[in-house]
Each structure stands twice: as C-alpha cells, then as structure tokens.
C-alpha cells in the first residue's frame, strides 16, 4: 500500500471520531504550547538581557570584587547578578557584586587599592573604586528605588567619557558633599515623560541602615547637579540609568564604611591575552582573595544560567506532553479494540502486518503533527500575551520589556517532539494491531 494511501486511510479513521481525536490532539497542543511559550519567553529574556548587558559592558573593563569565588556565588551570599532591587527595577539595572561575600571572606577592598592596581602592569589604563548601596530617592514625598554609587566624579568621567555625560546640568569636577548626579530613570522612573525633578532640584537620599542593632532610615538632602543622558542596558560597573552618583567621601561617610565594594579596572585592549594576564596579576597581588570579573565571563555565566533555566522549564512542560502521550496510547488501545474486526477485514483483503502498523502510527503522527503545529501557534500567542503583561507591569514593578523569541531550533524541536511522542506512545497499540491473526480478528464481536 502506498504511503499516501496509508495516510489517507489513517486520516479517514481520525475523521470518523472527531471529538475523540480533537481531545487527544488537545493534550499535544497544551504540552507543545507550554514548551514553546516557556522557551520563547526565556530565550527572548536571554537575548534582551544579553543585549542590555552588551550595551553596558565595556570589553576592556574588569571588575575586581572581594572574595575568591564571587562570580561562582551568583545568586547566593556573595555577588548577586541582577538580584534584589536590580531585578525589580529592571531594564536599566546594574549588576551588583561584593556585599556580604566580601565580609564572609574577611577580606575587604579599600579605595586606595586603586593606586596599587594602577602600577601592576603597563596594560592597565586606570582603576576606580566604587561603593554601591540600594536605597530610595525622595522627591516631593515620593520614594523611588535607586542604586547609589559612591565614585570620584572626575575619575569616573574620564573612565566613561561617552556615557557619564550630563544631558542637563553639569557633572561637577570638585563636587561638594551634597551634590549628586542621577541617571535618567531616577528622574523619570516610569519612562513615560513624568519628570519628578530636574537638575538643580533638592531631593532626599534615603538609605535603610541595617548594619546597626536597630534598623534605621538614614537620610540627607542632596542637590542634583546633573542628569545623565540615557545610557540603556546594564551598567556593568559603568553608568546606569537607575544610578545616583554620590561623591566617594560623602558615600563612605553616609554609608558608614571605609571600604569600597568593587574596583573597576580599565585595560588598554580587550584581547583575551590582556584580560587574562591582567586578571592574573591582580588576583596574585591580592593573594587570590579577590575575583576579577570580565564581561566575557559574565556573558558566559549568563548563557549557562539561561541554558539551565530553559532545560528546567522545558522539562516541566515536557511532562505535560508525556501525559498527552499516555492519552494517545489509551485512545489507540481503545481504537484497536473497537477496530479489531476491521483489522481482520484488512488482513483478509491482503494487507500486510507492517501496513496495519503504519496505519496506526500514521494516525498518531497526524494527531502529533496537527497538535504540534497548533501547539506552536498557541504557545507563540501565549508567549506574546505574557510578554505584553510583563511589559505593562501586570506582574508588579514598572514592567519588563521582553520580546519572545521563537528560534528555528525550538520550532523544529517542538514539531519533532510532538510527532515523536505521539508515535512512540502509539507503538505498542500499533504493534498489537499488526500482530492480530486475521481469523481471530474476523471472529471478534
């Protein structure tokens, strides 16, 4: 029997029991839709974050954080990648390193270490210490989350000459203690043109001090000297749209610390040889008590994290497809019992066992194909709806822009998985059908 005749016969059997076939297909649709929706959202998220990160990253910038394995402790007690408030505020968030990781190792960085780093190698251009804390900016009684960076304004401006640039106001060379520079998102948190304050305004700086026995809100009034131009992306050490820049001495005094959280090192070029040689020099200089993080390491880590997330989410969604597969098997066994006599007739007419097998597998493949195609479509629609809801802030926060991504790999993989699962679960009933003896099948009532 020719292939198109087999498929035609299989399709006629499916058409006969439309509701049953539709319900069976629905199982596959749900399974595939879940896979496609989750994967396209996470892949879109990965691309979005990676692009943002790439925009914020300077390939010739290294970050020195205290602790011997700060990058490995991402999400844990050490450095946190986009964690905490950075994840909440999103879009123009920064990457935070150090913090408790430094304390736990007993080693701390100080701002005068930059002078030691600067002379380690002629490959190093400059280095700058940063103190980083999370807090709020109080503008007319409205508290908006922000990230405070204690930096030397002139050093920072020379290290980031294209991004640490004021769109309005100025960046003071010798700032007074109460002068600050803010990112665009600090003055326009919802990015909808509602400007809360501008250069020249006075705002409250609020920091929740949890280092003392009693948790208290420390505050002071600062004057906004300049508002930065839009940076976009993540500020991997560099300027961030969500950043509030405070002079280093004021930051250390206000946050009650003599240490710094990390040191940004700019090297002469972004070649792997330079990055690794400088990284080794710095690590050795501090007896292995620091971690030197490069942009490539962060991107690679991000890729690993997203790979794991995708595998995990895809795995969960695949379970629903397995359930659909069991449904297909169940329906096929029922169909086999109902059609025993028909199989007897087909065999009496001279149909080979393998053709009977193909007819049953053809039915499941058609169900799998239709289910997978509709599932991909539904999953894609679901992913776009979810992305819109995420963007509108329906899940809290100010919204997170993500464009779902349906890669050819996910499309083909889902299609193959849908058909594959359907066919695999139909193998047993199909095999039983093919093995029926014509005499017994014809006698079946």
């Amino acid at each position, binding site marked *: *029997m020719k292939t198109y005749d087999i498929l035609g016969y299989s399709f006629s059997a499916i058409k006969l029991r439309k509701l049953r076939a539709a319900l069976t297909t629905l199982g596959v649709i749900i399974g595939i839709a879940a896979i496609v929706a989750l994967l396209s959202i996470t892949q879109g998220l990965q691309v979005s974050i990676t692009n943002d990160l790439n925009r914020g990253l300077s390939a010739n910038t290294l970050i020195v954080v205290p602790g011997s394995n700060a990058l490995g402790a991402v999400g844990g007690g050490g450095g946190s990648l986009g964690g905490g408030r950075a994840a909440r505020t999103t879009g123009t968030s920064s990457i935070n390193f150090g913090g408790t990781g430094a304390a736990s190792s007993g080693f701390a960085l100080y701002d005068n270490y930059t002078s030691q780093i600067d002379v380690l190698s002629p490959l190093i251009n400059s280095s700058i210490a940063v103190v980083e804390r999370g807090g709020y900016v109080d503008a007319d009684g409205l508290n908006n989350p922000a990230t405070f960076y204690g930096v030397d304004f002139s050093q920072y401006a020379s290290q980031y000459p294209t991004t640490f640039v004021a769109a309005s106001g100025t960046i003071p060379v010798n700032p007074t203690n109460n002068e600050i520079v803010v990112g665009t998102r600090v003055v326009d948190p919802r990015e909808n043109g509602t400007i809360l304050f501008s250069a020249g305004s006075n705002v409250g700086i609020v920091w929740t001090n949890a280092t003392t026995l009693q948790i208290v809100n420390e505050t002071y009034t600062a004057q906004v000297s300049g508002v930065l131009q839009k940076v976009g992306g993540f500020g991997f050490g560099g300027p961030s749209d969500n950043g509030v820049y405070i002079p280093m001495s004021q930051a250390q005094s206000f946050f009650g610390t003599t240490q710094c959280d990390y040191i940004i090192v700019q090297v002469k070029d972004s070649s792997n040889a330079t990055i690794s040689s400088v990284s080794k020099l710095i690590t050795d200089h501090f007896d292995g008590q620091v971690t030197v993080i490069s942009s490539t390491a962060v991107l690679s880590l991000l890729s690993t994290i997203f790979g794991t997330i995708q595998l995990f989410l895809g795995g969960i969604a695949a379970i629903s497809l397995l359930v659909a597969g069991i449904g297909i098997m169940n329906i096929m066994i029922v169909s086999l019992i109902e059609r025993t006599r028909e199989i007897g*007739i087909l065999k*009496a*007419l*001279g149909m*080979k066992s393998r053709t009977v097998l193909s007819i049953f597998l053809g039915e499941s493949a058609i169900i799998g194909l239709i289910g997978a195609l509709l599932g991909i479509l539904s999953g894609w629609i679901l992913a776009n709806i979810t992305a819109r809801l995420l963007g509108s802030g329906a899940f809290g926060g100010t919204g997170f822009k993500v464009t779902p991504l349906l890669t050819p790999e996910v499309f083909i993989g889902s299609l193959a998985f849908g058909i594959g699962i359907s066919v695999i679960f139909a193998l047993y009933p199909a095999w039983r059908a093919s093995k029926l003896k014509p005499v017994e099948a*014809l006698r079946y009532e």
Partner: protein
Amino acid sequence: MTALVEAIDLKKTYMLGKVPVEAVRGVNMKVEAGDFVSILGPSGSGKSTMLNLIGALDKPTSGKLLIDGVDISKLNDNQLTDLRRRIGFVFQFFNLIPRLTALGNVELAMSIADVGKSERKQRAAKLLETVGLKDRINHKPAELSGGQQQRVAIARALANNPKFLLLDEPTGNIDSKTAAEVVGLLKKLNVENHVSIIMVTHDQNLAREANRTLEMFDGLLMSEGVNQQ
C-alpha cells in the same frame, strides 16, 4: 492440469483452552478452474475452518492444501498475505468499512494491492456497474440495503482479478428476494465471466445453486454430488 484448490488428507486441530478440537479430520477434495462449488454442512461440521484454510487465513495442522499448485502450509505470513490478495472474500456480514463509500470499499482492496489511484477508481466504478450498483457508488454502507451491501462486497472481492471467489454464507443476512438476486449475480459471474466460486453454506437450497456440492459433517467430507441446474 493443476487444480485450482486441492486438499490432500487436510487436518486442522484447534486448542480450545487446553482441549484439542479436531475441526477438519482428513479432507480430500479438488476444485477446478471455472467451478462453482458449494461446501454444505451444519454448524460445527468444519466448513468454516475449511473456508479459513482455503482463504489462506489459517494454516493446516497436517496434510496438504494446494492453491494453484502451491502448498499453503509451506508459506510464511507475508506469502500468505500475498496469496490472500488473489482470493476474493465475500463474508456473511458483508464486512464493508462503514466510513468508506461503495467505491471507496472496492478501491481499498486495490490500494492494498498497490494499484494506482486513477486505474483503481475506473476499475472500481466498472465493477460496481457490473454488480448493478452504478447509481450507488458514492453511498456509504449504512445507506445501502443488505443486498446492495453484499453486491459491494462481491465487487470488492472481484477487485484484484482473484483466482476464485470464496463466499461465507453470502445470503445468510439478507431476505430471500435479495438472496435470489445475489445468487443470480454469482451464477452470471461464473458462467459469463468464468469466475471460479467456492461457497460455504448450511442452506441446502443455496448449495444446490452451485454446480457441485461437497457435504461436510463432523470434520469429514461425507459426500460429493453434481447439482442439476
């Protein structure tokens, strides 16, 4: 000349649970090309087992069953399947595929034998015309009377130019008037189209319509007689 069907000391034993049942106990018979033979017997005489054996649906326990000179006991499952394509089955309960039209049912037999789409459509329509169903080709079995369904079954049996037609109580499920029409059709096919026919029945009147009757009882062939037409 080689006989169309020849049984030599043919035996078939079934296991009914753990009890062996000798359904056919040493039958010797011959059917020549062009014959119209009926196998007559009461229920349990072994005639249905004979039908299954001649139809290559089952293999004998011992003895020989030669179909066109080939001993079916020596054939494997695939060879038996191929042989079945050259035997035209007509069942008591028609056994048509309900979701297919009359034309589709006849075409199905040909598609199993790998006949091309346009050729089988043409041939199926012609066969349905031969059995008098020219106007009913696009009707499904449920839309046809019992007699019409049996005619579709006969057309389907003739689809692949079989060596012979093998009928199992062909009028057992239709009224007497329609039965007479079906018998008339069979006779016409035998006389005018030289189609060989082997018909299994318990109905003596129907058996007499064949040229020759082989009477079975208790798994044995008891008598053989030529019918006066």
